[in-house]
């Protein structure tokens, strides 16, 4: 049976008492763990002398003030150095008593090697997880950078392509002009009916090519030049529309084209550009509208605004196309005749002209009412 002294000495934990820092008593367990005899420790050594250097600093910066202020510390991890300079990880509880003006510290020491191993593994796992997270974030950043780089390249390529379109279109005008001139000269001479038909086809094809080139040049100017240039002047909207409708009637024989008007027709705008709007909208209406029904151009001035509307009957513009209608290179897929003059720039240019005038274009399309494009300008 254990008496108190035996229990103290052989307790399953190290027990040390200090008086003003100096070891006053230590049990056998503590001495055996550290490899010292009690005589070597008692009255000669302070607890911190047995600590590793790192723990000695910690002892001063944390342990001492804590014991002083709260009278005890629990579950503090420390590392002792054995006589053979081997490191022993321990958990320590300490309580301070004040007796006769001296500080008495009672310390219980538990070896915590396995616990420390476990904690080290936890720590390693945490570090590993942090590294993984970091590398993932780095990868994300790199990916985003690559994406931005790609976008920049694509944008540069697009600008280059648009510039190329501008240059080529411009340079094509001269040879086209020569062809046109030649064809006109030919038709003025005496030609056979077969030759006349051929020259007629050359003329109409050349005209179509010229319009295409004009559209392309407008497109590049709008995209790269920051918008189309317009020169507004006072004009009669009704007269302008009537003239354009007459010209279109000639180009589209067999189709019914109406012009309605209301108001005095006075407004300020660029006449060439307005003509272009009428031509583009009417060509679209004739291309996509029902062949047996009329296309109606309505011009109206009213209060501050001037309006030009082109209406046709026919299939509804699909919902999914609506948001992209005024973007370049978009066009309805149905009913586009082979060799149509459009490359999908017509509505884009109409909108650019509207914007350049400070106006807008709107569209409505229903099965019952048909399709209407409306240009609205300030007078």
């Amino acid at each position, binding site marked *: 049976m254990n008496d108190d002294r035996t229990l103290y000495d052989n307790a399953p934990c190290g027990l040390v008492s200090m008086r003003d820092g100096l070891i006053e008593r230590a049990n056998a367990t503590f001495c055996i763990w550290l490899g010292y005899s009690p005589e070597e420790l008692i009255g000669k050594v302070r607890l911190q002398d047995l600590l590793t250097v*790192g723990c000695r*600093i910690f002892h001063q*910066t944390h342990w001492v003030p804590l014991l002083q202020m709260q009278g005890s510390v629990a*579950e*503090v991890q420390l590392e002792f150095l054995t006589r053979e300079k081997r490191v022993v990880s321990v958990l320590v509880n300490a309580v301070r008593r004040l007796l006769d003006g001296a500080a008495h510290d009672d310390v219980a020491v538990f070896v915590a090697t396995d616990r*420390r191993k476990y904690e080290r593994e936890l720590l390693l796992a945490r570090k590993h997880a942090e590294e993984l997270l970091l590398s993932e974030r780095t990868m994300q950043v790199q990916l985003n950078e690559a994406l931005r780089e790609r976008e920049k390249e694509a944008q540069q390529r697009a600008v280059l392509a648009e510039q190329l379109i501008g240059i080529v279109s411009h340079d094509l005008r001269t040879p086209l002009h020569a062809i046109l001139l030649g064809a006109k000269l030919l038709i003025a001479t005496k030609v056979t009916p077969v030759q006349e038909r051929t020259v007629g086809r050359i003329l109409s094809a050349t005209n179509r090519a010229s319009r295409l080139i004009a559209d392309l040049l407008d497109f590049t100017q709008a995209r790269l030049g920051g918008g189309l240039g317009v020169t507004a002047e006072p004009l009669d909207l009704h007269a302008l529309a009537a003239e354009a409708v007459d010209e279109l009637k000639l180009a589209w024989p067999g189709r019914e084209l109406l012009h309605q008007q209301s108001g005095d027709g006075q407004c300020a705008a660029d006449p060439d550009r307005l003509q272009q709007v009428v031509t583009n909208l009417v060509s679209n209406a004739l291309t996509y509208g029902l062949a047996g029904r009329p296309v109606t151009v309505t011009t109206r001035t009213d209060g501050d605004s001037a309006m030009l509307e082109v209406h046709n009957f026919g299939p509804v513009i699909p919902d999914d196309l609506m948001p992209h209608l005024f973007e370049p290179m978009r066009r309805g897929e149905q009913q586009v005749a082979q060799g149509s003059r459009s490359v999908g720039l017509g509505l884009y240019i109409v909108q650019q002209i509207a914007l350049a005038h400070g106006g807008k274009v709107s569209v409505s399309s229903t099965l019952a009412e048909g399709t209407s494009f409306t240009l609205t300008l300030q007078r």
Partner: protein
Amino acid sequence: MSTKARNSVRVFGDGKETMIFSHGYGCDQNMWRLLTPDFAARYRIIVFDLVGSGRSDLKAYDREKYKTLGGHARDVLEILGELSQGPAVFVGHSVSGMIGALAAIEQPEQFSSLVMIGPSPCYVNHPGYTGGFTREDIDSLLDTLDSNYLGWASSMAPVIMGAKDQPELAVELTNSFCATDPEIAKHFARVTFLSDNREDLPKLKTRSLILQSSDDVIAPLPVGQYLHERLAGSTLKVIDNIGHCPHLSAPRQIAEAMAGFLQG
């Protein structure tokens, strides 16, 4: 975030002149509670927590700003700029001794005198200089801090004994003294123990009192001597004390030495 909230500043005491207390590495402003009562009758007392310690705003711990002690010195100047009327007495423990010196070099007009308890301009030995530690020792401390991640700094509770002289309220109040974010504790330890401010010493023109413990592992006697020789207008007073916290273990001696210095 105001300076007061950032550094959990507390102001008390009656007096025209301001006395500001700056704690050292490890704990927080509670370190001063045995010393401040001696001065609260004659001074307006400011205590605060260095950013990263105690109840300071941990979100304000910017590793770039606090990668040198100068970041903390700037905070001291901001606190004084907001709260002090006229030059103040600065009392700094351990690493805060140098923080106060850096602040006083920057804006001498804010300081009437410095009291440095256990200061050290450099903890690592160099040829011709004994700081007390080798570089390996400091690396071992940082290593220990690293591997003690779960054990240190995060919880420093007292032993729950259920004794009558340890009411539960006190337990709750006290167990956060030395608790802080372990990552910040590691960073601050690195900044503190690898700091070398020896070249700043001749720039300090404010009169100073160096309170040196007779036996201090962290700031040994030769360090106090070194500081005294290089700080113009400094007084060196060796306190008979074991350990790095004489303001806790020998507060009467510290208070007397301070009172003598401040009268003189």
